[in-house]
């Protein structure tokens, strides 16, 4: 019971609710409907239309294939179709946020990827005796990228850095699991004379 509630809570926390897009779309729909209704009422009362009478609008839609320039019509239609594709993408894509669930203890813990990244960077930096800012970590949905820039003359063992990062990640037991990639950027010769 509690587990199911927590599973749901974690899912809600790690996925976007799509609220902002939905609000924008609904407001546009409401505005369009209100505008159409206004034009109909104006026509009923015999007043001048705001932009076009309903009859004119329908005639325009009817003549759309013959409208000139044709390339303009096609470009406009393509833009509309593209907006449709984007909305479909928003509706179907999972909308994952940059967060991971931490499987520690019996509570639900959700951590921003940035927090994981800075913790791993700090751990790698201390363990490999690197200067401040020499370890950069990017945390993605399924992968962690560790980039280390050792100073001149300092040798860095990639496997060692990887094992440190993996050991730290092991303690977090992230869901979904992540793979570690390590890159070592050796300083160019003659650079960084300090």
């Amino acid at each position, binding site marked *: 019971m*509690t587990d199911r509630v927590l599973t749901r809570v974690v899912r809600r926390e790690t996925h976007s609710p799509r*609220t902002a897009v939905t609000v924008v779309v609904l407001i546009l729909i409401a505005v369009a409907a209100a505008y159409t209704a206004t034009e109909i009422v104006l026509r009923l009362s015999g007043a001048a239309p705001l932009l076009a009478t309903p009859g004119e609008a329908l005639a325009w839609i009817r003549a759309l294939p013959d409208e000139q320039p044709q390339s303009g019509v096609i470009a406009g239609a393509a833009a509309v179709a593209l907006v449709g594709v984007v909305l479909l993408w928003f509706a179907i894509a999972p909308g994952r946020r940059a967060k991971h669930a931490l499987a520690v203890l019996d509570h639900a813990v959700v951590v921003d990827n940035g927090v994981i990244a800075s913790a791993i960077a700090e751990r790698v930096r201390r363990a490999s005796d690197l200067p401040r800012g020499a370890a950069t970590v990017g945390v993605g949905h399924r992968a962690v990228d560790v980039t280390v820039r050792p100073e001149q003359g300092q040798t860095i063992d990639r496997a060692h850095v990887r094992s440190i990062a993996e050991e730290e990640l092991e303690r977090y037991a992230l869901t979904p699991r992540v793979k570690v990639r390590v890159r070592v950027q050796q300083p160019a010769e003659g650079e960084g004379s300090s």
Partner: protein
Amino acid sequence: MNATNRGINRAVLFAVGLVLLAAGAAVILASAWPTAAEIWRSSAAAAVSWMQDAESSSAVSDATTLSGFTIGVLAVLAFVIVVAIVVIAKLGGGRSSVVIRDENGDGAQGAVVVRQAFASDAITRSLAHRGEILTSRVSAGRVRGTDVLHVSVTPRQNTSPAEVAETVTGLVDSLAVLTGRQTPTLVSVRSGVRARFAAEQPRVD
């Protein structure tokens, strides 16, 4: 964390997206392909004449331009506007002011209701002493009829999230001992602009 119905959000986006995609594709086809243009013209003409017929046949009286058809169209538009507003108004919500409720009162403690403010105070005050945690916020919500506590903390940069989680869940567990009731708890550890500026300063030595 709130009670937004995400299924409705996605259904709205799906329906609108499908309509826009279909409309755009239809216009492209009609512009680029003569056969489709012919279909477009004839069906548009049929639709327009159907509307004219419907309007003239359902006219309320000869004196006005008002017709049953027009009233129907206006009613549909009003309905669309109302639905859009209702869906927007129903977004969010689901916050609760109660963290623990035990109204049966059959336990040794009798009826227990722990307010969110109590849990919030207890947890944020305890976390305020900790140097590695910059800010904390506690809210409560109801998910599937269960009260859930949501503790959201921003730790200093370079702090291990596992340690932060342990600290916070330790406090939640202490609260559970105090109140005699385990509350399902979500801990979110956030990064923020503040965390970046409050990174441990380099020691000068």
